[in-house]
């Protein structure tokens, strides 16, 4: 059951290259929140009236140095709303609605290795997800692509907890090129293992990852983005075309039926 709270920013940390980590206290909201679920965050009195959707990045326990009951949001400045968010100092009031959406689903059995694919700020939901999977599934393989080395935020954190491979558009870190290249190679190499894919990032990347998974018969959960007004299913603004039973194409709401969708269902 989502709650709508007004709370104070506890920390808002510049991670460089326009990436920020926001922290606020929301113990009740955090209890039972699933990785890849999201919040709608608003800034009262600001030039934006609609809230913006942000995945939960850290739940209590994800980042062990953070105060108890706090949650973290990892975000990138791309427009007015994120710019205003980045301008907030500790103590500033924000409105938070959550938890929203469905969240990632665990692999069906304990032998399945989770394969995580992140593009840029699409890495946001993975810290909470990695913490949740920890010790119950084989250590994840992670493929993390970004524009340049600066954009590989939290790469050290991921490297400690996953088998991480990075890729950058400019070659400043990891493979030079798209993250889907090391991903395809690895999937071909790991044919004997049971794998399940989880991806979050820009739409073209998600389409490519879905295709790669489909070609190999692998289950693949994509965490989608969409313009949202409400975040809780009533404005019908955030839809994506999906294939219903019988291949008819309809629209599902990213905020309610998603943001996590099975790649096979999308009619992109």
């Amino acid at each position, binding site marked *: *059951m*989502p709650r*709508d709270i007004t709370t104070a920013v506890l920390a808002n940390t510049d991670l460089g290259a326009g990436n920020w980590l926001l922290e606020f206290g929301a113990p009740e909201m955090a209890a039972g929140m699933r990785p890849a679920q999201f919040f709608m965050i*608003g800034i009262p009195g600001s*030039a*934006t*009236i*609609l*809230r913006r959707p942000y995945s939960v990045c850290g739940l209590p326990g994800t980042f062990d140095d953070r105060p108890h009951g706090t949650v973290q949001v990892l975000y990138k400045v791309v427009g007015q*709303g994120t710019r205003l968010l980045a301008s907030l100092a500790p103590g500033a009031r924000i*409105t938070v*609605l959550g938890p929203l959406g469905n969240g990632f689903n665990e692999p069906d059995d304990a032998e399945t290795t989770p394969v995580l694919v992140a593009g840029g700020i699409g890495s946001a939901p993975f810290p909470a997800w990695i913490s949740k999977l920890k010790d119950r599934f084989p250590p994840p393989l992670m493929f993390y692509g970004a524009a340049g080395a600066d954009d590989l935020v939290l790469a050290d954190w991921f490297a400690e907890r996953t088998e991480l491979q990075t890729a950058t558009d400019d070659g400043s870190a990891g493979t030079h090129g798209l993250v889907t290249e090391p991903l395809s190679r690895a999937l071909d190499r790991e044919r004997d293992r049971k794998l399940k894919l989880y991806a979050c990032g820009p739409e073209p990347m998600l389409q490519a990852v879905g295709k790669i998974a489909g070609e190999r018969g692998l289950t693949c959960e994509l965490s989608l983005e*969409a*313009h*949202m*007004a*409400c975040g*809780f*299913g*009533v*404005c*019908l*603004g*955030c*839809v*994506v*075309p999906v294939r219903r039973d019988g291949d008819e194409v*309809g*629209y599902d709401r990213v905020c309610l039926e998603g943001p996590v969708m099975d790649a096979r269902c999308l009619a992109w």
Partner: protein
Amino acid sequence: MSGVVEPDLSVTVGPLALENPVLTASGTFGYGLEFEPFLKLDELAGFVTKGLSPRPREGNPPPRIVETPAGMLNTIGLQNIGVDAFIRDKLPRLREYDTAVIANVFGETEAEYVEVCSKLDQAEGVAAIELNVSCPNTEQGGMIFGNDAAALHAVTAACRKASRLPLIVKLSPNVTDIRVTARAAVEGGAEVLSLVNTFVGMQVDVERRRPVLKKVCGGLSGPAIRPLAVWMTWQVHEAVDVPLIGMGGISTAADALEFILAGASAVQVGTANFVHPDGSIRVLRELREWLKEHDVATLRELIGAGHSKAPA
């Protein structure tokens, strides 16, 4: 030192007796049930459903919405479950609540409007019909029903005959003189007018050099349009004798009171429901507080009171 213990918020909107003047606007409140986690539906005077058509509609391809300064554009394309599914799946659950269910209706032809109204007439638990006339009339080459006085008169009269339910006509603001269409709707049989629907607008994605919305243009709602909507309410109040329901950018009691003082007997909260799921209830509670603080015993005495020439 207020003498008012509990102000009387009840209003009479033509054939509708409402406990308070706060309704929610079509397309911003789903079929009501979606809001069960966030508020008590009984607390609201009523709500207006998403627009209902004869058959289900999938709506427009995305992107469908974008924020604009103090507003948002939408081109949902009237996605809805259709009137039959509404009557079958939603109404039974809604009847459990003590709240006025107002069915918003639209069609692409006059016959479609009539079809939906007739079906609602037979259903139990519908308090009133609100005609959404901001739809392109496919028989008339896409002309908007609500932007043409003659077409509006005709579709209103046809719907008037098709059901005994109280009939609200929701005016389009995209006209040169809203008093003309207001009069046409009243002459066609509207017992109440609601206003306004969204203003047509667009945003260009400068990086991609094309419209943000897939369908190019959409409807502007939110605080940005409030001054325009209040003015239209003010004008229509002077032009016709039926009660009005005002809307456009209401998110506080003061916003609601602007419409009421301009002549609205009730208001609808729209886009503000997206900002806070209980946005409508916030307006209602603030309104009650405001009346107490200002020692106003009945809200009804404020309806149209802004027009009085007496200096305040």
